[in-house]
């Protein structure tokens, strides 16, 4: 089976989605990110577990992604950036993030460790909220896309159209410095 056949095989992909989800949930639970207290600890800026998980995932993943790109094994999946889409939507997300103390992935993880709160408020709210957005999408979507558009899609573009690796290296160093400072400060 070639890589292309794996990607085109729908039943196999559905199974792979489940498998990726299982490993993802296992890792989120072991990292501590499925606990409300850990998320709120991060948002109150005294427990940096979530930032450490995300930063190390991005560090490893961006090297992996850049390797795959170098060998032509994957394509970029990057949205057009605009303040009206990602920043505005992100801020609304943030309000929910703070009230619930979980995000969409960790809601599922928290259900797995026994949180009824995550099930009856988190998952139910997410189903309602995503549906509400589907209703207003014909108006909000185009408004967001044309409001505060930014000209760069990736850090490579921002640095003047450099090769992916030339963008990966400074971002990787930045992540290492941030993690080093967190450890140095005992956070």
């Amino acid at each position, binding site marked *: 089976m070639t890589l292309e056949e794996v990607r085109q095989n729908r039943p196999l992909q*559905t199974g792979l*989605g489940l498998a*990726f989800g299982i490993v993802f949930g296992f890792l989120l639970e072991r990292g501590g990110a499925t606990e409300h207290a850990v998320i709120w600890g991060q948002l109150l800026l005294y427990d940096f577990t979530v930032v450490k998980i995300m930063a190390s995932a991005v560090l490893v993943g961006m090297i992996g992604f850049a390797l795959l790109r170098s060998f032509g*094994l994957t394509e970029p999946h990057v949205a057009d950036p605009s303040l009206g889409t990602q920043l505005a939507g992100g801020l609304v997300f943030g309000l929910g993030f703070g009230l*619930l103390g979980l995000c*969409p*992935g960790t809601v599922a993880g928290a259900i797995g460790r026994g949180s009824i709160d995550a099930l009856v408020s988190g998952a139910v709210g997410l189903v309602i909220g995503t549906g509400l957005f589907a209703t207003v999408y014909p108006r909000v979507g185009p408004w967001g896309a044309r409001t505060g558009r930014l000209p760069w899609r*990736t850090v490579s573009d921002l640095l003047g159209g450099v090769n992916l690796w030339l963008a990966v290296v400074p971002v990787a160093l930045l992540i290492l410095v941030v993690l080093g400072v967190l450890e140095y400060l005992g956070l």
Partner: protein
Amino acid sequence: MLELLFAPRWSPYLAGAGIGLLMTLAFLLSNRPIGCSTAYLKARGMLGRLVAKERTGAMEYYRRFAPTVDWQFMIVPGVVIGAFIAAGLSGTFALELVPPFWAERFGGSFPLRWVAALAGGILLGFGSRWAGGCTSGHGIGGNIQLSIASMLASAGFFIGGILVSLALFGIPWGQGVWGLLGGAP
């Protein structure tokens, strides 16, 4: 190595590195980043089709994200199962109605927590679809690709989350970042 299988908590760096490898594998085998918010939308679309088939089918957003059981949908049940296995192996699975952290501040009332958390869930769902992804799809999967859109979204997630959390729980003087600023005023 075997102890790791049963340890309730791993170093965040180990869990994070594992997630980074998993994302790489998803780019290789499925040619996309792992995200979670779309699955809830698909669930809503499936419910919609049960109740109002024509209206749901006519909606532009459900034509972009077909409400079917597919790769994207299966991620979320997978996460539930994966976390259940992890909690089961380490013996940390426990049914919990009101999160203790919330109860410490606002008391153990379930109706109060339910109203607040349901509002939170709705905002989370609305905002994640508006932003085009969540803490997984943008926060990890998009940032991995050095996407400016994902960096903007991540900034929004945390700015909003920090402001609401500080408003709800107050500044924890003396702890973490606040400890570096000295004692309470």
